[in-house]
């Protein structure tokens, strides 16, 4: 087990190094000048040259690469061309908002996905099965900006159930910055009324993002459940006279969870992709919007920083999923 983990961690380092190198060079072969992206289009050439020198972009590309790698080895991701802040500080600043959104949406997506998956399997071929699958596919097919706007119009504008955008009302002051996680900081400040307000702000963006995960979770849960239902132990459980809900949830679902866990694990990192659009629609100050702005500005250090961060998260989630396999199914042994 330990040896397996070490091997996986080494592999992770290799993957991240590869991603870093590729991103660095791909970002630089684009025929675009990041300085031109950062300064207004009417900035004179002298201002452009001055800024280029300041950014170190007048140095040969190998020198820039060497500096970048040695910087990263020292924990320095460089300074963002656009925000002029150390990239690591930017990542730390924007990550908590995305993490709050992604985790909530994963919980929502998983809860809805599992419920619909189980109902679809139990009611196979019936109207509930079809309805559940249509709902799931709908979420996957609709782009987040469309889903988001529709939800806003319905639940915020017409029904006025949930706030439209942002993490909290504009006229309220944020709690003191302690962890960077807004809800956690508000809890620490003991402002429970604001916590409820913030949770209400989280509902629409989290649902928009979570809906994306629902489709794959419904599909995999449904098919795994259908595979499990004919098994002998399910028949035995029913013959013992257990209630159907207990048979389905305790015996069938638990054994059908293995592939579902894989899908959920992979969705964690994919949520960051979805967060790009969702954060823009809901004015959510997270990593997704930071990433988009960085890509559009050809902000080399920020682009590489975001990419490495996502690569790390992806690899890390894969590792966790692999380790969870062993926990859920003791028959699996690590080589």
């Amino acid at each position, binding site marked *: 087990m330990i040896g397996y983990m070490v091997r996986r961690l080494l592999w992770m380092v290799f993957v991240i190094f590869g991603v870093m190198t590729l991103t660095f060079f791909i970002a630089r072969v684009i025929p675009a000048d990041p300085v031109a992206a950062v300064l207004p289009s009417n900035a004179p050439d002298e201002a452009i040259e001055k800024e280029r020198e300041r950014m170190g972009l007048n140095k040969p590309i190998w020198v820039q690469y060497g500096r970048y790698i040695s910087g990263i080895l020292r924990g320095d991701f460089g300074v963002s061309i656009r925000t002029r802040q150390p990239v690591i500080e930017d990542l730390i600043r924007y990550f908590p908002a995305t993490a709050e959104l992604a985790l909530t949406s994963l919980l929502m997506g998983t809860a809805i996905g599992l419920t619909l998956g189980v109902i679809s399997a139990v009611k196979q071929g019936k109207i509930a099965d079809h309805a559940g699958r249509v709902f799931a596919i709908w979420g996957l097919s609709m782009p987040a900006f469309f889903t988001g706007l529709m939800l806003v119009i319905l639940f915020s504008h017409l029904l006025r159930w*949930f*706030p439209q955008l942002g993490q909290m009302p504009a006229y309220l002051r944020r709690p003191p910055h302690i962890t960077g996680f807004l809800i956690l900081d508000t809890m620490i400040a003991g402002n429970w009324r604001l916590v409820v307000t913030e949770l209400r702000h989280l509902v629409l963006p989290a649902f928009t993002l979570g809906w994306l995960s629902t489709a794959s979770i419904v599909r995999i849960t449904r098919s795994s459940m259908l595979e499990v239902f004919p098994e002998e132990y399910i028949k035995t459980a029913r013959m013992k006279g257990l209630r159907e809900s207990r048979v389905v949830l305790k015996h069938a679902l638990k054994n059908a969870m293995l592939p579902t866990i894989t899908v959920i694990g992979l969705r964690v990192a994919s949520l960051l992709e979805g967060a790009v659009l969702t954060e823009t629609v809901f004015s959510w100050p997270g990593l997704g919007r930071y990433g988009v702005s960085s890509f559009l500005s050809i902000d080399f250090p920020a682009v590489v920083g975001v990419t490495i961060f996502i690569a790390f998260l992806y690899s890390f989630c894969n590792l966790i999923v692999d380790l969870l396999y062993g926990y859920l199914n003791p028959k699996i042994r690590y080589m």
Partner: protein
Amino acid sequence: MLKKVILCSVVLGLLALPALGQAIPKDTLVVGADMGIIVDLDPSRAYEVFTNVVIEQLYDNLVDFEGTFDVIKPALAESWEALDDGTTWRFYIRKGVPFHSGNEVTADAVVFSFTRALALDFAPIWMLDQYVPTADNIKKIDDYTVDVTFKIPFSEGLMGAIMGVQGICGIIDPSVVEAHKTGDDPWANKWLQFHDAGSGPYKLVEWLPNDRVVLEGFNDYWDGPPETKNVTIIDIPERAQQRVALENGTIDLAWNLLPEAIDEFKTKEGFTVYETPSWSIDYVAMNAGMEPFGNPLVRKAIKYAIDYDAIVEGIMSGAAIVGQTFIPTGIPGHLEATPYHKDVEKAKQLLVDAGYPDGFSTQIVCQPTSPRKDIAVQVQQDLAEIGVEAEVVQLIAAQMYTLYRNQAHYIIVAGWGVDYGHGDSLVKPFAHCCSTGADAPVRQLKWRNKSANCPLTAVVDASEAEVDEAKKLQMYEYIQQEVLDDGPFAILFYPLNQFASADYVKDFVPMFSESYTEFCGIYKE
């Protein structure tokens, strides 16, 4: 099971409570705007329009402007006078004006602020150092008097335009900078990126990038405390969301609405719409260094092929006014002339006269965003009518402007924002080019389009040195006429600045340049 159902219902009920008691307080103005552009609130670095909207609330300059930019009004300087031939200007500073820290604004602070901006040498400094190259040009005479010496004699209009530039000419509290400087950062640039040290009507409470800017009224402001005590600007990049936010009361004022939304708010009860021409220009430019655009007849043919009305009414949905000269409405020296209109026959004849009876093939580059990409397609269709086959290539800003600066385009659809409120900031970009090589002293739009014209460049140089404002403006009109007749630009329109607010928001005054918008006079009924 029943317990779980009840628990879930309570949680959902709490979360789904209608937005009771959530109206914005009367003493707080909430503005919704796309402000992803803000990256630094240090005035010495502020260049982007919306950054300057915030800077305007935090810092004061020596001089300011009335609504139209032809009248200079006192700000931190209560009066001024030209010494000798107008090269040196003397400013008399208002006494007893406090910074947000409580320290007084003095001549030392003025000298310090200009010295700091020049020493930091950030991108926007060119607007100042082209005329005030070193800190030696700013001298303290006594505690409330400062002399500024320009490189050339200045008219009052040009003096006001330069000293009124936001950010780099904003006055900063030296003691705050002193308190937050470090060995690596002797001018406290890092600290000022997120804090303020000004004397403006508002103090910066916090700026959370991609989220909000929170401002609090400064009660000791020299011109009286702001009408609205708090201003929060929230970042809403989606224009459709700004519209919904205004409708449902999440914000009081929307900054970046689509023209269609503006049209709806014009007739909708409970809302007010504000419109004013902006300090910007949208244009099509032809590279005279690329065949066949070196031929003036070809350029003229293109100018007559374009359907200006279709662009303004169709693509811009009326959110622009037709304008064909490079000094837009609202800046002194603007020449009112719109000789070009779509005339296919005339355009075809010009192509025949130019030796291209069968037309030619070319390329149009633009950014992949509306309205520029839509304008490019409209121009492509217009050119097809006169036999010119154009391919539209969409490039992101960083790529397109790299191509443009390398003089490697054929036709480009682009825009230009005015840097400071005087024709001086426009005649050089649009009319100064005697050499198309790297040795040219000004390598701006005319240079990028390889359109050399040495006699006209000499007039531009002469206009810079002209101290008589009336004569200077006459020269600007001549230069505009020349560029209109022969230049590489088909200027399409001046976009409108459009805003909408709830109708209880009063005294919002839109400016030609958004960045000079003042929040301190706005109040809620």
